[in-house]
């Protein structure tokens, strides 16, 4: 497969070069990386606004540090097919949802202890709390090439032609991969949903 390095958007290409310099040990570039990763606390702030400001500022600040640690650990996986913002957003969203659930669990525990009665069901607060995790876990576990097409199409917002161009493949190949990817993801999403229904 062609790496498509000459076809990436300048920003994603710049990010890839920056990450490669960092991985190469150029610590002088840390300030530039920090500038790019300001998107981490900012994305968390936006997510919190969207979810009705559920976490306090201190929790958000701490969560940002957790995400940065995760980003640092996974830096070697960055392929430059999207900008750093696009790449880290998934980690921000996963960690934010996880923190939110943990907070709700604590609130629920407190409510149970105080009233010794059932607290509001998490489902009433978020009807499908695992939707994000399930989709991304499904994408992580499926065939890499097909997952990549689904990600670029739906999360990158690219056309099939653009994806083909970026990956050095024909648009028809991309469309076939896209359809196969949908089938595979569907199969992976149905299984956990059934398990949970069965358990409930």
């Amino acid at each position, binding site marked *: 497969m062609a790496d498509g390095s000459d076809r990436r958007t300048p920003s994603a290409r710049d990010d890839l070069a920056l990450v490669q310099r960092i991985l190469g040990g150029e610590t002088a570039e*840390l300030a530039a*990386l920090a500038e790019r990763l*300001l998107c981490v606390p900012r994305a968390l702030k936006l997510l919190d606004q969207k979810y009705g400001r559920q976490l306090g500022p201190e929790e958000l*600040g701490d969560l940002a540090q957790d995400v940065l*640690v995760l980003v640092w650990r996974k830096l070697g996986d960055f392929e430059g097919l999207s900008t750093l913002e696009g790449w880290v*957003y998934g980690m921000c969203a996963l960690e934010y949802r996880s923190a939110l*659930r943990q*907070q709700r669990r604590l609130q629920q525990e407190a409510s149970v202890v105080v009233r010794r009665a059932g607290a509001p069901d998490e489902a009433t607060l978020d009807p499908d709390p695992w939707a994000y995790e399930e989709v991304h876990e499904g994408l992580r576990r499926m065939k890499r090439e097909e997952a990549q097409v689904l990600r670029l199409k739906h999360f990158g917002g690219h056309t099939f032609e653009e994806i083909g161009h970026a990956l050095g493949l024909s648009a028809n190949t991309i469309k076939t991969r896209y359809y196969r990817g949908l089938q595979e993801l569907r199969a992976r999403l149905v299984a*956990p949903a059934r398990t949970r229904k069965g358990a409930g």
Partner: protein
Amino acid sequence: MSKHPREHEDLLAALTAGERRPSEPEVERQLRSCDECATAWAEAQETQARLERLGVEERETLAELGRVRGAHGEERVLATLQRLAAGETGTRARRFGAGAWLAAAVLLLAGAWLVVRFRTAEEPHEPKWLGDGVRLEAPVGAVPSYGSFSWSYTGREVERFELKIYRSKSDPLDPPLLERRLTESTWTPDAKDLEQLPARIYWVVEAWDVFERSAGGHSAEAWLSSR
């Protein structure tokens, strides 16, 4: 391998790519005459809708990022990266924030509640549900021996389970008597382990995913009926 004709699959690929429309007479005919095509098309639309819903949320958030300033934690980004680059990957110092205060309050209330409960008759305790995922199966309540510890898990993919056994429910903050990291949903204590277990135990299982995020936990009490 599916026996679904290749040309049907090609048509479905064209449909999902938006090249063909279900209202086209030829497509409509095929979707009516081939159950497999109809099902596959319905499922593909559902999956597309799910992806698109998440994708739109992500793209909207990313589009708004440029306008956000002054988010909490911005001032610590460079220092955190410098620490990480220097190889300091240990736990960061957390502020005692609202979540921690809440957790402390919960523990305090739970402690008070437990004191009240322990003064009442020794009735079987229902396992406490701590969130999604784990359900403890055995040992729970009065048992002739501890035997195997077992639990079930449903939910997103997890990497491992963490089993902790405490002396009693009243001292879950004391170090656990036994602690195990397991990939299976069962654990059998050996003779040496059993020696450490008192007549009454409080045990907790928490599931962890590959990103070291908790996927929920469950706790229960068990005691030896013969002692």
